[in-house]
């Protein structure tokens, strides 16, 4: 008799959510946010970003409890706004995931290049992607218990090293200003810092694996946001007291510089190890989830049918995976040829993510009226005040990132959105017929 499956525990759900969010690209994003606020007010920036992300986590919790599905964004927005807007948003979300994966690929390749400079970052990009694609086609996934251990080791490593740094003789924030860029810089920095939470919501598909005790999933999301906030606030504060911002802001690997400055080669290797775990726990989950979403959209008829081919042995959507990986390869190799532009994909992803969070908040409001009789395991208290406030804040943050970043960020954002809309409006109806 097959073994009965056990319901997922809170510990596993928190580790999955926080583990997906913690990626190697979070470190340069964090330092970019620190440079935008200009001082150790970065700690309050992260707390601010954590608070608003915590509010959107409540919206995700309500929606995941209503519709436990791997295709979360597609279902929520279709129910809330109708088919074409939903498809536009979903395709834009796929574009966003590819941008993040490209940034992560480049940053982790830069880590490998720092450890082994004989091979260029470009070559490391290709090696990393080949290994990742083989793993994905074989369907290799980190098992729940191992994922738990790796994630908590990673968080303990960052928190431990940060506390060690804060109590070390090298640490000094006496000469570091508080927030020289003022309130404007603070707002932009909060928007950029949202990037470090990216992906925490990707555990909503696990609602499908939590057939019993579903409310556990709803409460795990704000807890993982809290864990990320504490970890990043400590790390940012430690970095401000150990490194001059000017030394870290132009590097794709500020966490390695931090480790090396703090503890020499040992610190370098510890941070490289943490980076490896961070990429492992986030990249695969992102790419795998993304390719499965593409597969489901192809099965639905919104993408060409050939993209719904499954590998006959491993049951992985290998055509969708190859397409996703090809686009990631183009983006990440392009970054590797223009290393100074490594922040562009991070800022594009941050702007799309803030927009998505606004849309999710507005979805909650819409569904309160459209689907008022649908059962909710969890309900955000206070009527529509919290989702309305959260949606408006995230819309402002999206505008803030686009207005304060280079023109390439706005160009990629706008072109990605327009192409998604045109595809949903004109291509999908033809495919369906």
């Amino acid at each position, binding site marked *: *008799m*097959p073994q*009965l*499956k*056990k*319901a997922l525990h809170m510990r596993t759900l928190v580790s999955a959510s926080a583990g997906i969010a913690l990626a190697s690209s979070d470190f340069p994003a964090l330092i970019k946010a620190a440079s935008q606020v200009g001082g150790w007010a970065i700690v309050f920036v992260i707390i601010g970003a954590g608070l608003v992300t915590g509010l959107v986590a409540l919206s995700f919790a309500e929606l995941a409890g209503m*519709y*436990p*599905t*791997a*295709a979360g964004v*597609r*279902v929520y927005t*279709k*129910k809330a706004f109708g088919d074409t807007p939903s498809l536009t948003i979903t395709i834009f979300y796929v574009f966003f995931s590819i941008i993040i994966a490209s940034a992560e690929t480049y940053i982790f390749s830069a880590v490998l290049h720092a450890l082994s400079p004989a091979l260029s970052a470009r070559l490391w990009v290709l090696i990393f992607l080949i290994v990742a694609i083989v793993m994905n086609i074989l*369907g290799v996934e980190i098992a729940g218990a191992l994922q738990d251990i790796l994630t908590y080791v990673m968080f303990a490593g960052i928190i431990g090293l940060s506390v060690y740094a804060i109590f070390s003789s090298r640490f000094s924030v006496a000469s570091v200003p508080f927030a020289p860029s003022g309130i404007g810089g603070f707002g932009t920095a909060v928007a950029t810092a949202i990037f470090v939470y990216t992906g925490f919501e990707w555990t909503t*598909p696990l609602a*499908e*694996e*939590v*057939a*019993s005790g579903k409310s556990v999933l709803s409460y795990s999301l704000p807890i993982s946001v809290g864990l990320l906030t504490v970890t990043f606030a400590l790390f940012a504060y430690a970095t401000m007291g150990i490194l001059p911002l000017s030394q870290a802001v132009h590097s794709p690997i500020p966490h390695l510089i931090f480790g090396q400055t703090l503890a020499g080669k040992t610190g370098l290797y510890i941070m490289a190890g943490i980076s490896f775990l961070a990429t492992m726990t986030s990249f695969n989950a992102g790419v*795998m989830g993304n390719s*499965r979403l593409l*597969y*489901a*959209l192809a*099965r*639905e*008829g919104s993408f060409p049918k050939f993209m719904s081919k*499954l590998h*006959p*042995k491993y*049951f*992985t*959507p290998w055509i969708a995976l190859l397409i996703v990986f090809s686009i990631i390869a183009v983006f990440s190799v392009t970054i590797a040829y223009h290393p100074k532009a490594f922040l562009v994909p991070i800022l594009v992803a941050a702007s799309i993510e803030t927009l998505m969070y606004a849309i999710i908040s507005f979805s909650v409001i819409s569904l309160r009226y459209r689907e008022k009789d649908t059962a909710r395991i969890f309900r955000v208290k206070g009527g529509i005040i919290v989702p309305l406030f959260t949606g408006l804040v995230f819309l402002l943050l999206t505008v803030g990132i686009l207005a304060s970043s280079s023109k390439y960020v706005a160009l990629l954002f706008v072109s990605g959105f327009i192409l998604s809309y045109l595809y949903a409006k004109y291509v999908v109806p033809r495919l369906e017929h």
Partner: protein
Amino acid sequence: MVALETLINTLNTFVKKVNENMTLKKILKGWSKLMVVKTKDPETVATLKIEKGSVVDVKLEDTPNADITLSANADVINDIFTGKANPSRLYLDGTLKVFASQKDQMVLDSIVDIVWK
């Protein structure tokens, strides 16, 4: 509304089709699961015991913590198991709820795809 008898007949026909399909037998040879199908209107529940890709037992009873749980209205489940409806579309609609690991969802989807090809 689909009658309970129709639903049971549909399920049995589908099970027969799965068990007779040689392609499925070949690709699912290592796949052993407990699957629960729950419907509303009328409320029914069935547990399918799958061993090495063949459905070896169907019981009209619930199994807590099964590997896979499908849940939808009876007419939706009936349309899926008779090949009239695209389960992916219903799933993306939120009409069909599937509680299972990601891999098992893919396997289920390919079973439906192969049976109704």
